[in-house]
Structure formats: structure tokens, C-alpha cells
């Protein structure tokens, strides 16, 4: 099996049981961190090096004035045009045959560039190991033809994984069923993500979810333009120096340079 996969997150079916959060920790052997109660079920407050997926809890007042409790499973979106993989100097972050972005932790040198290139703020740094960590869509499980731990744990069918086209069709069908503001999130930017949401509300309603995620401009300038330009300009200079030498010629010292040090005429 080596086809492009998509993990579909249908938030209209999520009950915020956080089974996926726990299953992720269990399968990936990620320890818990002590946190404080801040008056929200959302715990820990954000993704961490040891929390690769997180249910975000959000109280939202809609236009009619009624309060809705929104749940969102946050985590790596597995972009096709992935900022993290673009900047990673050691190819520790890389695309697999399934289209997800995996992480070879041994190769990570802790440069943190991926943290600044990711439009979703996914990679997190662990100072103790000097490495970054993030969801790899349970790459080893995919290789074994098994669903990711989060998908396996989901009791409501909010999480599914399957071939790209099948999942996108399902997503659009579900959005049609839901009607209203429901929409598909993920297939229209960064050349398509391999985690796709069915959002019951408009994207801008959700906390920490960029409406139009893009790889930051500076990252594009850095990696797409300046990186190749650095070598090209240097090459042009070397060629220019050679041309200068064979056309104009060097600036030679005056003739009087003799072994005696010369005398002026």
C-alpha cells in the first residue's frame, strides 16, 4: 500500500472525549506534563513536544446570540507543500509514500527553523533532547496497514483515514448534509493537506486555525530565492574574475621589482 492518504476529521461528530489525545500519547510513548487548571477542559493548553494532538475547547457566540461549544482536534496537517520539510537542513522532516510528513528524530539538530516555517505552529521543541517533535501520522502503523492510533481510538467516527479521493468525497458529502456554514478545510492551500477537516463553522471562528494558511513570505524568499541565488552569484563572480583576467588582465607590479628590491629610474 503506497497511495496518498488523508485523515479526515469531521468535527461535527467530535464529542471531545479526548480518546485520540490519550491514544496518541500511549502509542508514541509520550509522557504527560503537569499542568494547572485554567478553567477549561482544554489540557494541556497547547500542543507540546510530548502532546502531538490536542482537543481545543472553545465557547463561541454565533450571530443569533446562542452559545456553541466548539471542539477541534489540533495537530499536524501534513501539508503537501510543507514549510517544515522545506526548511529542514538535514531532511529530518520528510514526505513519505503516503504523503504525510514524517520525522526522523535522529537526524534533527534542533535548529528550530521548522517552528518558524509551519503555518500552523505544529513542531514543538524539547530543550532536554535539543530536538523538535510532532505528529508523524503514525507512519510505522501506516506501513503496517494499520490506522493511526487516534483514528483507531475514535468512538464516533469523527476520525477516518483512507485514500485521498475517497476521503475528500466523503468530506464534501458530509458538508452538503450539514449545510449552513459547514465547509471542507485543507484541500485548498499549501497544495492540499493530508489532514482535512469538516468544519461545522467558518474557519475564522476557530481559535488558532489560520483562515488562509501559507508558508511565510520570508521562508519562501529564503529557500526558493536566496538559497539558489547564493551559489549562482558566486559562480557568476568566479566566471567574471576569469573573464577579467583574460580580457583586462591583472594589475602587475612595476617592472623595477627585482631581487634587489628595485631602484627607481
Amino acid at each position: 500500500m503506497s497511495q496518498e492518504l488523508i485523515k479526515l476529521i469531521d468535527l461535527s461528530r467530535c464529542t471531545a472525549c479526548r480518546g485520540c489525545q490519550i491514544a496518541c500519547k500511549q502509542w508514541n510513548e509520550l509522557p504527560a506534563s503537569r499542568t494547572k487548571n485554567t478553567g477549561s477542559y482544554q489540557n494541556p493548553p497547547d500542543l507540546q513536544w510530548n502532546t502531538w494532538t490536542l482537543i481545543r475547547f472553545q465557547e463561541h457566540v454565533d450571530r443569533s446570540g446562542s452559545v456553541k461549544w466548539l471542539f477541534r482536534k489540533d495537530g499536524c496537517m501534513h501539508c503537501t507543500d510543507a514549510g517544515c520539510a522545506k526548511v529542514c537542513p538535514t531532511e529530518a522532516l520528510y514526505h513519505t509514500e503516503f504523503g504525510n510528513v514524517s520525522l526522523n528524530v535522529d537526524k534533527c539538530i534542533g535548529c528550530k527553523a521548522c517552528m518558524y516555517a509551519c503555518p500552523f505552529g505544529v513542531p514543538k521543541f524539547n530543550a532536554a533532547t535539543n530536538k523538535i517533535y510532532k505528529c508523524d501520522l503514525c507512519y510505522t502503523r501506516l506501513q503496517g496497514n494499520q490506522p493511526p492510533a487516534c483514528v483507531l481510538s475514535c468512538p464516533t467516527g469523527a476520525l477516518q483515514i483512507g485514500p485521498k479521493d475517497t476521503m475528500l468525497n466523503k468530506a464534501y458529502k458530509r458538508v452538503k448534509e450539514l449545510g449552513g456554514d459547514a465547509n471542507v478545510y485543507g484541500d485548498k492551500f499549501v497544495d492540499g493537506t493530508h489532514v482535512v477537516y469538516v468544519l461545522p463553522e467558518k474557519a475564522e471562528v476557530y481559535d488558532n486555525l489560520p483562515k488562509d494558511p501559507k508558508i511565510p513570505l520570508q521562508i519562501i524568499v529564503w529557500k526558493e530565492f536566496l538559497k539558489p541565488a547564493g551559489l549562482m552569484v558566486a559562480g557568476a563572480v568566479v566566471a567574471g574574475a576569469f573573464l577579467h583576467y583574460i580580457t583586462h588582465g591583472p594589475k602587475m607590479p612595476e617592472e623595477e621589482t627585482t631581487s634587489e628590491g628595485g631602484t627607481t629610474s
Partner: protein
Amino acid sequence: MRKGLIKATRPFERVVHWCLALSCFLLCITGMGTMYHSLNFIGAVIGGMANLRMLHHYGGLFFGVSLVVAIGLFWKEAGRFSAKEDWPWIKEGGGFLWHVENIPEVGKFNPGQKIFFLVVALGGAAMLTSGLLMWFPLSFSKQLVRTMYVVHSLGFLFIFAFVFVHLYLVTIGAPGSSPAMFTGWVTRGWMKKQHPKWLKEMEKNGTLEVYGGNGGNKTSSS
């Protein structure tokens, strides 16, 4: 050392210049090994990419110290332009770009060298600042760190290109220049061609040091 050679540089100047040159070379190599995947093998040579990154960081600190000392050392002579003296030389391209019968005479540092010094000083400072922010990015805002990636790679573009201009000029581009960096003693013929006014100034001020004593082939008698 031959009799009649002229002292162009002091030992401390040469040491500082070498510190700057070697650390710049090290930073180019280690930086490129990090930037280009095809050059990742440079990391393997020293036991992994993490070592390469550390070498780049501490090499950068060494470069920073060398840079500060070099700026302090050369600022007065190379950092100040004088329109009266420098402009005619710039207008003629210093005789490097087309044929010039009489190259306008300038002092110890010609305007090309001064521009070079400014690029190294300002570019080096930009590399040092952006490099430090990239080393400790978590203390700064995301937009600032992202901009530093651009500054650092743009700085590399300029510095790497300048390295080759510099290497060309001090080797085959202007033969006789490199001894100034090694032994510090250059020939009178080179001095007359490259820095005639400086030679005259030193002769006038009596600060000219000629190897083997000032008696021999010294020309100051006229």
C-alpha cells in the same frame, strides 16, 4: 626576506586578518553544509550535522570577536572616505576595469578596499546579529526570526561573492599582494603600482621600513 622589501603590515594586523579570514572560511563551509542538502556530507566528516551546527555557532562567535577587533583596527584608515581623494579613483574604476593611463593616486587603502572593508564590517555585523537570533530564536517574535533567515542568507550571498572577488584580487588579479598577508614585506614595485601615495607619504614621514636597512637601495635621497 630579500633586501629592499618594504614593510606593509604589522604582525597584529596580519593575525587579526587571518582570524577573520579563517573563521569566515569555516563559516562558509559549515553554513553551506547546513544550507544545501547535497553538502550534508560535510557534517558527516565531523561526526554529524549537530556538530556542524555547533561548529558554525562557535565559529560565528570567533568571527564576531575577530570582526570587532578588525573594525577597531582599520576603522580610521579604511572606514573614512574623502571625496577629494577617492572620487577620481572611483571614476576611473581604480584602473581595474578599463585601461587608465594614470591611475589617480590614493593613500594606504584605495576606495575599493574601503568599500570592501565597509561590506565586511556591516555585512559581518548583520550576519552576527541575525546568526545570534537564529541560534536562540525562542526568545524572539516569529516575524523577527523569519526576517533574520532572510538577512542571514542575503548576507551569505554578498559575502560569498565578495570572497571570490577578494581571493582573485590578492592572487592572480594583483600579483605581489599576498606577501602583505603572509610576511608583511612587499616589493617596492608593487607598492609603486598599488599604493604610490602611501609610499610617498611614508617616505616623507620617515616611517618607511625597508628590509636590510634604509641605506641600501633607498630612494629618499632625491
